[in-house]
């Protein structure tokens, strides 16, 4: 089992000009580790991170898009796995932090915390699928995960985080959306 923050710190070493879509706990943690205009944090409705990512990827096929989705979010939009696999954008990397809880809403458990997201992505037809539970292996493979033709999916099996500060006004600031558009 890994820590999400550790995974994001390793991921941050590989980030160049990609758009990074993140929401809720992942958004706060990611934006603290790697604050930048190309962080896309205004999702508007839980679960739609993966759909925003697909739209970004289709609009700029010359740029890569990384989605940092929570497991509770993906459960709200499982159909997006099928949609993304069907559209098959080569420039989309879909990472799901699987901690088994709705962390931003009181850390209550998912209906079934053992759900196999990588298996679902594989069955949906993603081009490549990974399931990481070991930080050393994640560290060794993340560069390849980010560079290969997508859509790429990876589960990051992580522990629930400690208490986070959820300053939604900051991450949903319209200025952040304007900055993203200017940078994209």
């Amino acid at each position: 089992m890994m820590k999400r923050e550790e995974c994001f710190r390793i991921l941050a070493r590989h980030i160049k000009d990609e758009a990074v879509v993140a929401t809720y706990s992942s958004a706060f943690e990611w934006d603290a580790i790697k604050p930048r205009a190309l962080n896309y944090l205004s999702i508007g409705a839980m679960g739609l991170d993966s759909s925003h990512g697909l739209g970004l990827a289709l609009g700029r096929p010359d740029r890569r898009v990384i989605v940092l989705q929570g497991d509770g979010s993906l459960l709200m939009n499982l159909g997006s796995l099928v949609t993304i696999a069907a559209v098959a954008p080569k420039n989309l990397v879909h990472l799901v932090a699987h901690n088994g809880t709705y962390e931003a809403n009181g850390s209550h458990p998912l209906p079934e915390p053992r759900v196999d997201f990588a298996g679902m992505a594989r069955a949906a037809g993603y081009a490549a699928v990974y399931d990481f539970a070991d930080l050393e292996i994640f560290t060794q493979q993340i560069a390849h995960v980010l560079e290969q033709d997508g859509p790429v999916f990876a589960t990051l099996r992580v522990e629930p985080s400690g208490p986070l500060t959820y300053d939604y006004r900051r991450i949903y600031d319209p200025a952040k959306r304007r900055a993203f558009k200017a940078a994209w």
Partner: protein
Amino acid sequence: MAATTSAALSGGKIIAAIKASGVDYILSVPDIVTSSGLLAPIADDKALRLVRVCKEDECIGIASGLSYSDTRALILIQHTGFLDSINAIRGIAVDYQQPICMMVGLLQHDPEVAPRASPSYGVRIVEPILDDMGIAHHLINADADVGKIKPEIDAAYRESHPVVFLIGRSPS
């Protein structure tokens, strides 16, 4: 209350208006009102890129993502899917003032009756909900209404706000 009355609504004219609006992507879950007159010909039209999604609220996120590269999209869904997507529309189209353009088929609607007076509860509540959300909407019931499409899509992208076209009869 009478709605716009005319015998015909041409799917070909609607598609021409969509193309004239600079729309590249159609995002859709099939809707029986627009199935044969719009979605089927769009699927065969090489000038439009169709993304078939599993659930209507996906369209709202995809259209938002596309808008950041100034790539225009039109969402083609049924009013039941619109109702199912209200929170996404609230968050993305209204709170974030994104140019989300929707074409919504009114299932079980009688085109000779105004939607607000429809015997169908689901149809009757659509326009009041849009009014409460402050979303511009236009009834496309006849060929004479098709001229509303291009200027309203242009305005939605120019001014960054949502717009809804309610399809009141099956296009031929």
